[in-house]
């Protein structure tokens, strides 16, 4: 049986259960939800079982296994909440009251201060249908240009670099299963062993080259299995890529007839990049990055000698004020080796959020219209305006990027009201204290969520919405494969879908019912038409194909044929890249320092990331008792010497201070850490919020904040200094 046929069987043979996918990350592990025969542990009346699927191969991590436990959580919101005045508590309200209030206030603000007085903040966790409807709602119901989403904090640098190099951005331009046969996989700033665990099953640890300032679980897996871990100083991955390219160049790895022909026939710009790389000889690279020249040579040889190889970037490379150039440097290395568009090899980025891929294609980004179209492109505006039944002139232009939007809230020039859907920026935005302050300054904050997240706690109106197992729609996973999300149970009374909420608001704002259907099927039909002819073309992704379990990868134009259960474009760029001349672009890039470097006052690098048990801001996973028990509190990883100098022992509460704020975390001494670097997970709110420290210095191209590098100092939370401790000793 072919793999595709097996998928088909797995998808359809679940007569008794509902075949759907995990609510969390972009791997979208397949699972089956079956009504529980006998009352068991609280899991929404459902039994959850992993399902065989190419991406997760029948596996689930602890987050996936426990995901259904949230459905009947006592903290679940089942009624709208309204705050009568700033400072008053949130009180229960009816749906009509809440929606009337929101629509009336949005309308009044718009009338008084113009359409851009109302802003929208979306999410990479929303289904394609919701992302599409949210973008449409902003542009035609509110008429605002002020919409962006948390994917800006996630995928924007890789997306910009991919567009620059290939003319198109799809996280993995090949199926995940291609990785199984790869002879060398470079993971740059990605820690799938914690963030996407079942993906690890596709890697042979001996063939992994992990680039990370920390010895992460992924790096450790590589080392244990005979692979390589390169441990650069934070903020130096760009130079490391050029250093590897230099070695590949001078050791003759790039002179093979195949690679020479590839560069000549499929790319432009090699000479400029070659000169950039020539300047990063191993010893110079070593001095900046701290990666030994010998290690650099070993890694370059392992990569260059592989017959099939992949370079994959993650947030560690991308969340910098030079994130786009950093990704470009790694793409340059991949192009020099002839990987992209070659069967069995490639470059890709590991998308983070569940619908981080689809969420960046359908118009909830400040500068984008559905189908990955640009909002300033007249042809794109005309096409979308026609689908929406409006004039192109009535569509707003590009708005502020996520951080710039949050930073402007409640200021004289910025929006006075904000609708948040599927996001928790009070925890996930950089410089979190400032973000909270800006949210506070709004005249009206409306949050649609299923829990009282930290952002919902600040809201004036909270709208309770359905969870993943209670709704239908589509998600696009990290491979650009369109998947079906299916409802497995009825939502609790009092809860509405996000689509229903948008419809209710749109109607009250004067739009007509047919423009905002609540039925996800109807929205998907419109999305397919809107995306037709665009970069991310979904026109041929008919629901019956998806329901039949076909593997559908965009672009999938209308009429695209199915071959052995696969439709659309599983592998991009095999014949040509998406630039008009069909060639990929080498981009000459140069190292530059981070916006903030350690100094005498803030002598350490702080970097942030995720831990296995929690997902993003933790609004969901912190409410799962089993996950909270395993990972109950914020911690800071510190080299034992660095901890000792700060007067801290393992388990002590540390205060970590940056120019933007301070946070508290339990000290975890980690001997493999660089002594100049500390690490904090960003899943925790309030006093333990890692994002209190982070720097909203933005990449000039992607507007990605510099989450991965801030200068901090470390001290005891009780204020007892090192000196007094030493005197006492």
């Amino acid at each position, binding site marked *: 049986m072919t793999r595709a046929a097996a998928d088909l069987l797995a998808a359809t043979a679940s007569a008794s259960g509902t075949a759907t996918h995990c609510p969390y990350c972009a791997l979208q592990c397949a699972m089956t939800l079956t009504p529980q025969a006998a009352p068991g542990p609280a899991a929404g009346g459902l039994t959850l079982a992993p399902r065989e699927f190419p991406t997760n*191969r*029948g*596996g*689930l*991590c*602890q987050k996936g*296994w426990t995901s259904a436990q949230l459905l009947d959580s006592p903290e679940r919101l089942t009624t709208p909440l309204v705050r009568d005045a700033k400072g008053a508590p949130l009180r229960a309200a009816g749906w009509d009251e809440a929606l009337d209030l929101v629509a009336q206030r949005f309308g009044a603000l718009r009338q008084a201060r113009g359409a851009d007085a109302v802003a929208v903040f979306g999410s990479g966790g929303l289904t394609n249908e919701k992302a599409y409807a949210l973008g449409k709602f902003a542009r035609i119901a509110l008429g605002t240009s002020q919409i962006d989403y948390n994917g800006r904090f996630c995928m924007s640098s890789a997306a910009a670099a991919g567009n620059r190099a290939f003319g198109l951005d799809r996280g993995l331009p090949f199926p995940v299963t291609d990785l199984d046969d790869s002879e060398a996989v470079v993971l740059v700033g990605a820690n799938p*062993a*914690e963030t996407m*665990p*079942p*993906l*690890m*099953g596709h890697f042979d*640890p001996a063939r992994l080259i992990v680039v990370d300032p920390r*010895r992460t*679980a992924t790096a*450790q*897996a590589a*080392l*244990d299995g005979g692979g390589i871990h390169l441990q650069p*100083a934070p903020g130096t991955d760009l130079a490391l890529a050029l250093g590897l390219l230099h070695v590949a*160049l*001078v*050791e*003759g790895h790039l002179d093979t007839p195949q690679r020479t022909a590839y560069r000549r026939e499929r790319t432009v710009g090699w*000479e400029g990049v*070659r*000169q950039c790389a*020539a*300047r990063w*000889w*191993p*010893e*110079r690279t*070593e*001095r900046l990055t*701290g*990666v*030994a*020249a*010998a*290690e650099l040579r070993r890694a370059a040889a392992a990569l260059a000698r592989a017959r099939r190889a992949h370079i994959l970037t993650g947030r560690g490379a991308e969340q910098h004020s030079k994130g786009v150039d950093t990704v470009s440097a790694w793409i340059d290395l991949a192009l020099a080796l002839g990987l992209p568009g070659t069967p069995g090899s490639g470059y890709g980025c590991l998308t983070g959020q569940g619908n981080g891929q689809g969420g960046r294609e359908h118009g909830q980004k400040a500068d984008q219209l559905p189908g990955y179209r640009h909002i300033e492109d007249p042809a794109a505006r005309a096409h979308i305006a026609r689908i929406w039944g409006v004039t192109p002139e009535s569509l707003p232009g590009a708005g502020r990027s996520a951080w710039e939007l949050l930073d402007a809230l409640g200021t004289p020039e910025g929006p006075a009201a904000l609708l948040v859907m599927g996001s928790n920026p009070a925890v996930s935005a950089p410089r979190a204290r400032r973000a909270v302050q800006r949210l506070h300054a709004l005249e009206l904050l409306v949050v649609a969520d299923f829990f009282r997240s930290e952002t919902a706690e600040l809201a004036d109106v909270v709208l309770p919405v359905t969870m993943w197992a209670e709704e239908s729609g589509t998600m696009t996973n990290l491979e650009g494969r369109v998947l079906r999300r299916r409802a497995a149970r009825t939502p609790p009374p009092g809860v509405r879908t996000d689509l229903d909420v948008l419809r209710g608001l749109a109607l009250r704002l004067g739009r007509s019912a047919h423009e905002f259907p609540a039925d996800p099927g109807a929205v998907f039909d419109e999305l397919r038409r809107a995306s037709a002819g665009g970069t991310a073309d979904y026109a041929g992704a008919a629901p019956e194909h998806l329901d039949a379990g076909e593997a559908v990868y965009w672009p999938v134009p209308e009429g695209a044929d199915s071959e052995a259960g696969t439709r659309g474009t599983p592998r991009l760029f095999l014949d040509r890249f998406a630039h008009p001349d069909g060639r990929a672009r080498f981009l*000459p890039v*140069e190292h530059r320092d981070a916006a903030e470097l*350690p100094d005498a006052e803030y*002598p350490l690098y702080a970097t942030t990331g995720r831990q*296995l*048990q929690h997902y993003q801001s933790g609004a969901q996973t912190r409410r799962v008792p089993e996950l909270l028990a*395993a*990972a109950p509190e914020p911690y800071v990883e510190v*080299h034992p*010497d660095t901890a*000792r*100098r700060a007067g801290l022992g393992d388990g002590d509460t540390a205060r970590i201070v940056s120019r933007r704020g301070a946070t508290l975390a339990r000290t975890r001494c*980690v*001997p*493999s850490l660089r*002594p*100049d670097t500390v690490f904090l997970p960003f899943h925790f709110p309030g006093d333990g919020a890692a994002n209190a420290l982070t720097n909203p210095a933005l990449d000039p191209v992607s507007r990605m904040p510099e989450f991965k590098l801030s200068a901090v100092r470390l001290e005891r939370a009780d204020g007892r200094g090192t000196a007094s401790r030493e005197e006492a000793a």
Partner: protein
Amino acid sequence: MNRALNVVVVGNGMVGARLHEETLRRDPTSRRVRMTVLGAEPVGGYNRVLLPGLLSGSLTEADLAPERCGASPLATGTTVVGIDRAARTVATADGRQLPYDRLVLATGARTAVPPLPGLREDGADGDSGASARGVTALRTLADARRLRRLADRARAVGARIAVLGGGVLGLEAARALVARGVAVTVVHPAPHVMDRQLDAPAGRVLGRALHRTGVEQRLGVTAVRWEPGKGLHLDDGSVLPAAGLLLCTGARADTALAEECGLDVGPAGIAVDDTLTTSDPDIHALGDCADAEPGLIQPGWEQAGVLAARLTGEDPYARYLGTPRVTRLKAAGIELACLGDPFVTDDGLAGHAPADGGPEVLRLEDPTRERYAKLVLHGDRVTGAILLGVPDAAAGLVQLYDKGAPAPSDRLALMLGRALPPEGGGETGEALPDHAMVCRCNSVTKGALRSAWYDGARSARELADATRATTGCGGCRGAVEKLAAWLAETDPLSSRDTPATTAPR
């Protein structure tokens, strides 16, 4: 600022070109600074550091091309012959007078040619210093081409190239020539090579490593005469037969223009303050012509950053406060890093404890394996080090030293870069502690698996069903199977020859 500052740079070497690049980066439209770079060489500021790579054949001349050139005028093949400080103009060899608001001297250094009979031919141009048959330096692209020709001719007839001077450049060039397939002997007057950076035992170990990679050495001897067609006469009366002679005898700052126009010049070069300003406030100098440490590129590059920040107004108060001294030998097969000052008169053996303010010195000598490591600390700061054959340690230590960060308390790990033990531990069974994480994907510890066993899960499969271990990426399947086998062996209640009878869960 109403008008762009008119800056003329004399010298288009690595530092002059870098200044141009750093300026453009800060002022891409040349709104604040209009910079003209004048270079005597016919090509731009190629990368001198990579000349040995050109020699070994691993790089091409294009790879050594100047750092990115922008819109600003850049004149190659233009020699400056004089400076009129009163009129604020420079005179070029082709008779032009170019005005400046600020002048930057980046004239670099010249090969210091030893007073050795036979090196110069009558009437030779003294620029590269040496044009006698078979003799060259290695400072310019023209030198590199010349050396490559000499080397190829020598290789063709099985002859040898003599390298005079066993410093960094001499050794890198020698190693590159060997890589090109040429026999090489380095002649050095001191008892060991790189004696400016290395103590005697380190020098001896390096000598061994060089020998292994094919670089022959004649140490403690001085050259007395070059005889073209024959070789190099040495002061012990012997003759080293050689078809070519490469001079790597150091460099001295090129201060001719500065001296002519009356700027203050010290023994090491043009005198500048920490703003890189000479005794004339409108004239700056940087790089080898103003620095006491010729041969290292890092200081010049950092100076270029400081001066660009000042000229463009990005940071009018920028100061150059020095560059940590790090020398890294670029020779394939040899990993050597020297930092700071590794020479100590008192290495702690005289009875001084570090608490007395004396240095703390650690040393490992392992000539058999060509390793030598020496660490000098004052308090918890590294002030000098020699690391040969311990590449991991070198990388980490240089980072520490560059940042002036305190040294870790585990000095041996610092010095040897020895691999840290894996944090997970490779053990299974009894040796594994109960809290050890077996399945990371599902947070399952050995203790949890053991409890599940005693609750009735009597196989790897049943353990998986009970705890979800192995159900994530599957990477721990082997470990869980081993644990199941160990539990079966050690569990008094389970018999190895009867299958488990517990019902599936």
